[in-house]
Each structure stands twice: as structure tokens, then as C-alpha cells.
């Protein structure tokens, strides 16, 4: 029953495993995708931040440089001390060169179109202012005595031009901030999207896992209930068939029983009346007639034995079975005593192993040994001394009991016919048995759940083996 049930269990388990493997794979996929996506966003974001910072610094530097340039020039115009004026000129020139290098650095940075426009506007404003400033400085160089205040209007014109550059720089900052914000917003959105996608996928995976598990369980349930139905049907069928079989068997047994009984009365009449006739008409009959009459009697006696044996055989099957501890050694010993007194004219040597204990029906086992031992004696009657051995040996870890004789033996080719009822391997006069004995032996051993077999060598002897499992 368990074997039958275990089949869908493993199938269900396999489905579950497949289902969970699918879910697990999906989860791993989703996690991988999410990590990849997030790291991409991170990279993008840090790149943007880096560029933005550098550009911001550069723009601030540019602003400072231009402011220093303006301050340097203004001091040159306002300060009278020639030493201080020279120092202001140097500041102005340094700031101009710093502006140039920083501007070149910024020009190399990646920029959007808008940034580029603002950058160009800044360059133009700066260049315009620088041109005016350069002219102003040339005038100062040409005419050392020119009143400085007269140059202030040109100075202011340069400031105005540079204001445009400042505005462009502010624009650049604003654009950059905006771009950075856009990138950040994009990254945030991408992050949210990724999160949503991940959540969606996880939910999908869980849902799918659930679905798989549910379908597997449902299928398992279905298979189980279907199997239960089959099993019940099968059980019912087995019960029905067993009942039918038992019925048929017991009918057959009672049939053979009553048949044997009914045959007995007419048989008794045939045998007895031919005996009576023989006695009454002995004088009147010639030897031939007398022989015929005696043949009728003998045939009747043979038939009687057959009927007796059929009854015995059916009785073994019909009788109850009472398991108890039985000493086979003691049973063999008592049979040996009985048989020795029955066959006084024979020299029989018994060799009986001690303390062989089994569990079985003592009446049936007595009958079993009776047959095996009597067989051993009957088939060794041509030997001057009969040797019969009873013992036990281990075969495949289980005890095997045996009865061994030194009789005429039988041809192993017919070994399978030995235990069939009414099959004999010897002529009638030799064994004077009906061929039921070994069939009975087999039935008795089978009722104990055991096995019986024989080995033999013609003219040397036979060994009959049987097993009696401990529990049956």
C-alpha cells in the first residue's frame, strides 16, 4: 500500500522543486538586474557630479581672475606711488594669464549646446573687455604723463563689456545647475523605475511561485484522490476475488470430501461382497475364476487407499492452524520408535540432531515427519541396513531442515513431479503408496509458509529439505 502511495509523493515533490527553482531563478535574475541598473545610475550620477564640480570651480576661478584683472587695472589708475602702481600692473597681468589658462581648461570640458552658447558669450565679453583694457594700457605706456582720471571712462567701458562676461558666467552656472538637477532628477526617476520594476518582478515571482506550488499541490491532491479511488477499487476487487476464491476452494473441498465419503459405501460393498463370495463359493470356483474375484478385492482395496489419501489431503487444507513451539527432534524420535516397531524385520540406524526447535502446528508437523521418515524407510528396503538422518543446516542465513536416507533415490529429472498428488516415480508394488504422501508434505510446509525440495542420486539415497519460517 505504501509503495503505491509513494509514487505521486515523489512526483509532487519533483514538481515543487521545479517550481521553487523557477522562482529562485527569477529572484536571482531580478536582483542581478536591479544591482546592474543601480550601479549604472550611480556611475552616471557620480560622473555628472564630478564634471559639474570641476566646471563650477573653473567658472568661479574665471570670475575671480576677471575680478582681479579689473581691480589691478583700477589700482593702476588710482594709485600714485609708482611702486604700488607697478605691483597693480603685475596683479592685472597675472590675473589675465590665469583667466586665459582657466578659460582654456573650461573649453575642454564637455558642455551642452546651451552651455556652449553661454561660454561663447562669456568669451566674447571677456575678449571685448580685454581689448579695451589693452588699448588703455597702451595709452598709458605711450604717454606716461596722461592724467589717469581721463582714462576712467575707457575703464568703465571695459567693465561694462566684462559685465556681459559675468552675466554669461552666471548663465553658465545656472545652466549647469539646471543640467545637474535634470540629471539628478533623471537618476532619481530611473531609481524609482528600477525599484518599481524590481517590486513588480518580485511580486510576479512570488505570485508565480505560489501559482506553481498551488498547481503542484492541486495536481498532487488530484493524483492522491485518484489513487485512493483506484486503491479502494483494487482492495474491493481483491476482497471480492479472495472471497470468491475461498468460497470456490471450500466448495471444492467439501465436494471432494463428500465424494470420497459417498464412494466409500459402494466400495465397501464391492470389496466385502467379493470377499464373501470368495469365501462362500471357494469350492465351486476354478483357479481362474478365483483369481478374477481376488483381483476385484485387491482393486477395491487400492481404491480405498486412494480415497483415504484424498481425504487426508483435503483435511490438511481444511484443518485449523495452531502455531506453538515444537521440538522437531522429539517428534522425529517418537516417529523413529514407532516406525522401528512397525518395521521390525529391517535394520534401521537413526541419526537425529538434538534440540531442533521450531514454531508451527504440532499435528501437521507430526504428519509431515511421519511421511518423510516412512518414505525414507520404504525406499531403502533394498539396502541391508537403512540409515536415516535428521538434521538442520544454515542456507542463506535461514535454517533448512532435512531428512536423509540411503535408499534407492530417484532421477533428478523428475524432481519437480515429486510433490504432485498421485504422481509416483516408482511402480505400485514397490512403494505401495498412492503418491499422496509428498503432496501432503508440501501442503503442510506451505501452510507454514515454507518451501520443500529434494536432492537425490540413484542408488545412493535422497535428501528432503524443508524450511519453516519463524513467522508466517
Amino acid at each position, binding site marked *: 500500500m505504501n509503495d503505491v502511495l509513494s509514487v505521486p509523493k515523489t512526483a509532487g515533490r519533483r514538481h515543487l522543486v521545479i517550481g521553487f527553482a523557477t522562482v529562485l531563478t527569477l529572484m536571482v535574475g531580478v536582483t542581478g538586474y536591479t544591482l546592474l541598473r543601480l550601479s549604472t545610475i550611480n556611475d552616471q550620477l557620480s560622473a555628472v557630479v564630478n564634471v559639474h564640480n570641476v566646471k563650477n570651480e573653473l567658472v568661479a576661478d574665471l570670475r575671480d581672475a576677471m575680478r582681479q584683472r579689473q581691480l589691478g587695472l583700477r589700482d593702476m589708475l588710482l594709485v600714485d606711488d609708482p611702486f604700488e602702481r607697478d605691483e597693480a600692473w603685475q596683479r592685472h597681468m597675472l590675473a589675465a594669464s590665469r583667466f586665459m589658462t582657466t578659460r582654456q581648461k573650461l573649453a575642454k570640458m564637455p558642455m551642452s549646446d546651451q552651455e556652449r552658447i553661454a561660454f561663447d558669450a562669456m568669451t566674447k565679453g571677456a575678449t571685448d573687455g580685454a581689448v579695451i583694457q589693452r588699448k588703455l594700457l597702451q595709452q598709458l605706456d605711450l604717454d606716461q604723463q596722461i592724467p589717469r582720471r581721463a582714462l576712467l571712462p575707457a575703464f568703465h567701458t571695459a567693465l561694462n563689456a566684462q559685465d556681459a562676461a559675468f552675466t554669461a558666467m552666471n548663465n553658465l552656472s545656472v545652466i549647469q545647475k539646471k543640467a545637474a538637477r535634470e540629471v539628478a532628477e533623471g537618476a532619481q526617476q530611473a531609481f524609482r523605475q528600477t525599484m518599481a520594476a524590481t517590486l513588480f518582478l518580485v511580486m510576479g515571482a512570488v505570485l508565480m511561485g505560489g501559482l506553481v506550488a498551488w498547481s503542484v499541490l492541486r495536481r498532487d491532491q488530484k493524483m492522491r484522490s485518484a489513487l485512493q479511488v483506484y486503491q479502494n477499487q483494487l482492495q474491493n476487487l481483491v476482497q471480492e476475488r479472495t472471497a470468491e476464491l475461498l468460497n470456490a476452494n471450500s466448495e471444492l473441498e467439501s465436494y471432494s470430501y463428500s465424494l470420497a*465419503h459417498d464412494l*466409500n459405501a459402494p466400495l465397501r460393498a464391492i*470389496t*466385502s461382497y467379493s*470377499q*464373501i463370495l470368495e469365501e462362500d463359493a471357494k469350492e465351486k470356483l476354478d483357479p481362474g475364476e478365483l483369481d478374477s474375484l481376488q483381483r476385484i478385492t485387491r482393486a477395491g*482395496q487400492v481404491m*480405498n487407499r486412494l480415497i483415504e489419501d484424498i481425504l487426508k489431503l483435503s*483435511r490438511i487444507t481444511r484443518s485449523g492452524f495452531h502455531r506453538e513451539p515444537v521440538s522437531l527432534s522429539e517428534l522425529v524420535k517418537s516417529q523413529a520408535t514407532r516406525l522401528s516397531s512397525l518395521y521390525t524385520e529391517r535394520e534401521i540406524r537413526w541419526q537425529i540432531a538434538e534440540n531442533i526447535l521450531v514454531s508451527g502446528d504440532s499435528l501437521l508437523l507430526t504428519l509431515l515427519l511421519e511421511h518423510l521418515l516412512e518414505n525414507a524407510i520404504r525406499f531403502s528396503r533394498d539396502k541391508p541396513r537403512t540409515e536415516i538422518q535428521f538434521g538442520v543446516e544454515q542456507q542463506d542465513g535461514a535454517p533448512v531442515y532435512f531428512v536423509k536416507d540411503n535408499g534407492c533415490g530417484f532421477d533428478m529429472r523428475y524432481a519437480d513431479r515429486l510433490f504432485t498428488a498421485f504422481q509416483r516415480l516408482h511402480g505400485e508394488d514397490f512403494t505401495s503408496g498412492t503418491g499422496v504422501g509428498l503432496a501432503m508434505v508440501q501442503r503442510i510446509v506451505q501452510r507454514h509458509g515454507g518451501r520443500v525440495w529434494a536432492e537425490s542420486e540413484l542408488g545412493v539415497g535422497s535428501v528432503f529439505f524443508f524450511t519453516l519460517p519463524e513467522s508466517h
Partner: protein
Amino acid sequence: MSDNVILLVEDNPDDEALTLRALKKNNILNEVVVARDGEEALDYLFGTGKYEGRDTSIQPQVILLDLQLPKLSGLEVLKRLREDQRTVLQPVVILTTSSEETDIMDSYTHGANSYIRKPVDFNQFIDAVKQLGLYWLVLNEAPVRRREI
């Protein structure tokens, strides 16, 4: 003589003749009353039916009872005998074909005194009847009958 009647309950005429012959062979010359079924046997024993008016104080010395009988079976007859005060102690020998353990056990349980299987060989049958006659008609002391008042 009538005090030593043998009641043979046997439906098979062949077996009946064989039994009578076996008795004769053994010089058992008691009167043999034959009942051919269980009912007839009870009629004889209780003085009813065909045996109406028989003196039931006189009962057979031994009853040879077959088990397979028409109408009432041998066991049924035995049961009725043991239920009745007049026949409760009556020696009953079951003389039958059956050697079934259950038949033997049932017979003794219902109060049979002896159980003998009819041998198929006539010589063995004569021998069995000889032993039977010797035991139940000669050696065995029958219980003292309670006479009806």
C-alpha cells in the same frame, strides 16, 4: 433374549447385510433391530410411530449408530437420546465411514461411548465387529436401568 437387543441404525442395505453377517460370523446371536433412519431409531427407543406401544423400559444393550442418515442425522439422534431420561445412559457406538476429526469430536461431545470406522476390507470389518461384540455385549457392565414407575 429381548433384554439383549442390538439396535443397528443403518440406511445402506449393503452395510446392513455386512454388519449382520459380521455379527453372525462372530457368533453374536443377539436379536438385531434395524432402523433405516434416525426417526425410526427414535420411534423404537421411545415407543412411538411404528413402535407404538413397545415397552420402553426394555432398551437395547448397545446401539450401533451410523452418522450419515436420512431425515435425522446420527448426531441428532444421539443428542435426543442424551436429552431423554430413558436413554441418557444407553451405550452408543458410532459405526460410520467418516474419519473426520470434527465428526469424532462431535460424537464424543454429544455423549457417544465409542467411535468405530467401518473398514472397507471385510475381514477387518469382521474383526472390528468381533471386538465390539466382545466389549459391549460381554465385558462391559451396563448401567442399572431406572425403571419407570
